[in-house]
């Protein structure tokens, strides 16, 4: 892409085919970004306009200006920071715990095929069980605090994560593992030298899924058992008919979800570049 700007230095010269290609790519890239923003702006404009003209009831559907105002008030009285902070903290904590427990369990299952065969039906059942059904149990067992919410977040992501990672570990080429044995290595060597580095793409894509699921679990938990957090604001707002607050919280959630996903994406890019 940089060569485009270099070629501009000699304006008289016709573009080479490579430069034409790069130029077309750049235009395509800019078009995609521009249209994305246009869609967003159009949506906001229609929303604001219909609320203003009374086509939709602003009390129920809010409007962009009301959301911005509500957001500003939340920033001023500090509720934005405490609630967003607590939700972020819970999400990151459950994500990290899911990663840790998931990796450890998948490693254990890989080491012992007997173990994985025995546990398989349990994992399948726990994975397909709707985890929101467990949330009331967690409240009874753990009370209404940050622990409950983190456990709820973990419960949503953990079983899928274990199955996914274990499948990834198993898909590593058997011949590569045989190579380690021919070099005199142990099963531990095979895991550290082949299975783990070979599964990094699986681990990264698994992390992307987990961060989203952890957020889902945390919000479910906050709906049921929290005094703080964005999930609490959404439930509280709907109960007192403060729908501006509900929609503002949802918007903040959108931004959080995107930011967390982008962080993992950045990690993936870093890894791919290193490779």
């Amino acid at each position, binding site marked *: 892409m940089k060569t485009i700007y270099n070629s501009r230095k000699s304006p008289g010269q016709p573009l080479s085919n490579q430069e034409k290609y790069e130029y077309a790519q750049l235009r395509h890239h800019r078009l995609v970004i521009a249209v994305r923003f246009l869609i967003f702006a159009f949506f906001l404009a229609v929303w604001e306009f219909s609320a203003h003209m009374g086509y939709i009831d602003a009390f129920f559907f809010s409007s962009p200006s009301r959301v911005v105002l509500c957001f500003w008030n939340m920033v001023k009285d500090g509720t934005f920071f405490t609630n967003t902070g607590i939700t972020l903290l819970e999400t990151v904590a459950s994500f990290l715990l899911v990663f840790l427990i998931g990796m450890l369990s998948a490693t254990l299952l890989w080491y012992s095929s007997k173990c994985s065969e025995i546990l398989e039906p349990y994992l399948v059942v726990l994975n397909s069980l709707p985890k929101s059904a467990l949330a009331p149990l967690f409240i009874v067992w753990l009370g209404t605090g940050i622990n409950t919410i983190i456990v709820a977040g973990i419960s949503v992501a953990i079983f899928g994560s274990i199955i996914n990672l274990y499948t990834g570990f198993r898909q590593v080429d058997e011949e*590569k593992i045989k*190579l380690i*044995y*021919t*070099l*005199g*290595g142990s099963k531990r060597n095979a895991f550290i*030298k082949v299975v783990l580095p070979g599964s*990094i793409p699986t681990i990264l894509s698994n992390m992307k899924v987990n961060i989203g699921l952890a957020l889902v679990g945390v919000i479910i938990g906050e709906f049921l058992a929290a005094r703080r957090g964005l999930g609490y604001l959404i439930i509280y707002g709907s109960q007192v008919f403060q729908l501006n607050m509900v929609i503002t919280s949802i918007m903040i959630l959108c931004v959080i979800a995107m930011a967390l996903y982008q962080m993992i994406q950045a990690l993936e890019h870093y890894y791919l570049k290193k*490779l």
Partner: protein
Amino acid sequence: MTNPILELNDICYSYHSPKGETDALSHISFRVKKGEFLAIVGPSGCGKSTLLSIIAGLIPPESGEIHFASAPEENPEKRCCPRIGYMLQHDHLFEWRTIYRNVILGLEINRQLTPEKKERALELLKDYGLYKFKDKKPGELSGGMKQRAALIRTLLLDPDILLLDEPFSALDYQTRLSVSSDICNIIRSTKKTAILVTHDLSEAISLADRILVLSKRPARIKCDIPIHLTISGNSPLASRNAPEYQGYFNQLWKEISDENYIQLPQIARPASE
């Protein structure tokens, strides 16, 4: 005659599955002398790779014994490495490691990353023309270069015996000719004992000192043919022009095709290379 470095006595092996038992090897016995280059040929699926896995100690034989002669110059430091180097069909270089780090994988596993060994790794890379690629990823190298890197990885552990399991079959024909002669020269110059499994008769004749022909499953040793080419000492490529080459080829072809129940064509089959 020097003492055998490897001796197999009456090795039997069969695979078991819920459907039943499949005999793979039946009563295999042979000896390999130090410095000898032995080729094993046989119909596909006859258990050649199983035999190598048993020699390498990856799977235990169901019955029979394997003996390794301990070399007199053996020192205790060497014992921590496997005595047998095994080259698989594919190079299996890891894409997430550079060539240099791939080559030292065996040392890493055996905790032998001493400065001398690292020095030796660089020397070997230099000798086999891979030095300037040492920081590249395997994907950037040609098939022949990768196979040479895989050989260095095996050689760095200083094995007494090298097992080669069709190490050239994944390469295209031209690369295969040059890489096989390269690798043969490397093995000859380091005076390693080698056992090559192949289905390519010309490769076996041009590389080996002796050829074992296995029957189809369950494999037993059908015949044991010593190879004496009058222009031995030259490159394996040149040895294909030896006057005896054609005779050996026909003899092997006959043994193998009898086994497959294919009639030998009436017209003498030219070994056109």
